[in-house]
């Protein structure tokens, strides 16, 4: 007879019954007792009762998904506190931030933690995506979760971008101005979309209100709903992908013994707790030591020089310096995001799931693609900046061809030549070509972002980082 613990237990007294509603008391010491505890527990219902012991290997997952979830929770709790000290209306918004820094108990700390957690979340989400890509974990049956993940990455960027405006300082105002101007270049519906987003022709009080509503309700609610679905799908898809060594890859059907499964409590939860506490401590320390930036109050008449978008869009802004806006801001991002989201539907080899970089060969190919991109991307930026003048050379042509499709086609041709050369030398298979292509393009994005952040100064000209005069 299994004793089901409910709040309605006639044998218990009033207070015992009241506390029973919170859950069973005491930690059982045997596996069976622990299993029951997990099954009954409201807090732990997102985890299965037992997990494959191999998926607990930290150097396989690096705890990136868990860290993302922790950061979302931290952002929501600090965000609610900030919300109670903030008015989404200029100029009060800026004054409220000043007030937060000086007059609100721990206001500056809460703001700093919120700011740095938000930036870290962008980085960690991207690292999580890289981990899943390089271990091949997005392949069936996990393709749905991959798409959900890509959508959540976009939502995280959206949350970051809308939050960027809220302090209403010069940095916020002009980063959002430059960032939203990119929207106007969407063909046909661009200006309508930009008008809708901004609530007018330019960043204004209406924009602040729109962004505030998106930032505190629509985007976080969407993220929480998708997160729940993401977690549920991890279980439905049979837990995490299982790490494999390259030796195991060579002899796939060796596995006759059943995989060892251990109880989630304490084996998984212990690691998660340590990881969470560590990062809470890190974010607290960072929040105490490093102040979130705040410049003077927004002035719509004076653009700082240079005016830069938020750092995660600097790769895109760098592309805008090289291509016609329709190509740089619409065609390239849409193609890249489409290729990323649909990855599990054309990369369908299942053999190497769980092996970092597919195989030993894959590791070398990844290294080669990284080095090539690290070399080619900066060289291309320099050549395009100083030697290529498409619009001057082809004066009669529409600029979206002369400074858009034409150089893009040449770059794609170069990319194809590279793949063909590697195919000749290494006899690469389709899976390895996708690995090379992803690595090459991702590293290119990182290089462009770094150039945009650190090497662009006054008038968005190229400078050495130490020669750049701060924006004025």
């Amino acid at each position, binding site marked *: 007879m299994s004793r089901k613990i409910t709040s309605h237990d006639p044998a218990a007294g009033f207070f015992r019954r009241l506390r029973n509603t919170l859950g069973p008391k005491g930690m059982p010491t045997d596996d069976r007792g622990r299993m029951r505890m997990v099954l009954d527990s409201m807090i732990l219902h997102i985890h299965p009762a037992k997990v494959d012991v191999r998926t607990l290997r930290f150097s396989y997952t690096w705890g990136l998904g868990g860290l993302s979830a922790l950061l979302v929770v931290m952002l929501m709790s600090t965000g609610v506190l900030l919300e109670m000290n903030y008015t989404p209306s200029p100029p009060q918004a800026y004054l409220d931030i000043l007030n937060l820094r000086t007059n609100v108990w721990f206001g500056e700390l809460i703001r700093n933690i919120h700011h740095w957690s938000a930036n870290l979340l962008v980085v960690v989400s991207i690292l999580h995506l890289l981990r899943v890509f390089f271990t091949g974990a997005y392949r069936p049956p996990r393709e749905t979760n991959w798409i959900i993940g890509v959508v959540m990455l976009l939502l995280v960027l959206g949350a970051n971008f809308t939050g960027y405006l809220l302090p209403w300082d010069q940095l916020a105002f002009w980063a959002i101005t*430059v960032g939203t*101007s990119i929207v106007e270049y969407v063909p046909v519906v661009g200006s309508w979309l930009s008008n809708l987003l901004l*609530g007018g*022709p*330019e960043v204004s009080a209406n924009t602040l209100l729109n962004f505030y509503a998106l930032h505190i309700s629509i985007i976080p609610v969407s993220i929480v709903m998708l997160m729940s679905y993401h977690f549920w799908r991890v279980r439905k898809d049979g837990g995490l992908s299982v790490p494999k060594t390259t030796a195991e890859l060579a002899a796939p059907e060796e596995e006759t013994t059943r995989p060892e499964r251990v109880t989630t409590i304490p084996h998984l939860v212990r690691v998660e707790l340590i990881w969470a506490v560590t990062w809470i401590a890190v974010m607290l320390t960072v929040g105490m030591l490093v102040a979130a930036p705040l410049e003077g109050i927004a002035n719509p*008449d004076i653009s700082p020089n240079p*005016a830069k978008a938020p750092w995660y869009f600097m790769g895109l*802004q760098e592309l805008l310096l090289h291509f016609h806006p329709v190509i740089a801001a619409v065609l390239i991002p849409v193609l890249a995001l489409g290729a990323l989201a649909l990855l599990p539907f054309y990369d369908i080899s299942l053999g190497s799931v769980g092996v970092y970089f597919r195989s030993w060969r894959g590791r070398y190919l990844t290294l080669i693609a990284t080095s090539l991109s690290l070399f080619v991307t900066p060289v291309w930026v320099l050549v395009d900046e100083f030697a290529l003048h498409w*619009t001057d050379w082809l004066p009669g042509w529409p600029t979206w061809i002369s400074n858009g499709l034409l150089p893009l086609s040449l770059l794609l041709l170069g990319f194809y030549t590279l793949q063909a050369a590697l195919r000749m030398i290494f006899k690469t298979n389709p899976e390895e070509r996708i690995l090379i292509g992803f690595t090459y393009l991702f590293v290119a994005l990182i290089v462009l972002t770094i150039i945009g952040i650190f090497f662009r100064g006054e*008038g968005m000209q190229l400078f050495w980082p130490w020669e750049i005069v701060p924006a004025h």
Partner: protein
Amino acid sequence: MTEINDTNITRRDFLKTAWSVIGGITALEAGALAIAYMQPRLAEGEFGGVLTIGAVEDFPPGSVTHITDGRFYLTRFEDGGFVAIYQRCTHLGCSVPWEQTENMFICPCHNSQFTSDGDVLNPPAPRPLDLFAVSIEEGIVKVDTGNLIVRDQFDPAHVAYAAQENE
């Protein structure tokens, strides 16, 4: 009667379809409502509405005046015509200051340059600066900042003139 019985729509199918149609319409309505709520909310007399700028004589021919409240530059040509040039750069939206000494608009963000009537002298700006409609009523200059005039090149039709005295 027989014709109706011949069709393959069962009661279940009909209800299913009906419910999905109703559900779809409801979703569209909710979406349209959300979009309607995000639309620009504009007021008369501020930026976004019609602004009264001043008397025609206040702006000498050949001058460029920054109207801060309206976010535009009022250019009066040598022939007396007016255009209101929106200060927002057509490249990425920075505010373009008028450089009197250079006699052109120079964008601080990406170095786009424009003439006093807003035409592009130097890219990356893809098109001339946008305009607001200027109207002159009884010698008073009014500018409608609610409607942007987007143009590919200078068009004399956009220039507003004061009514001639010999009417």
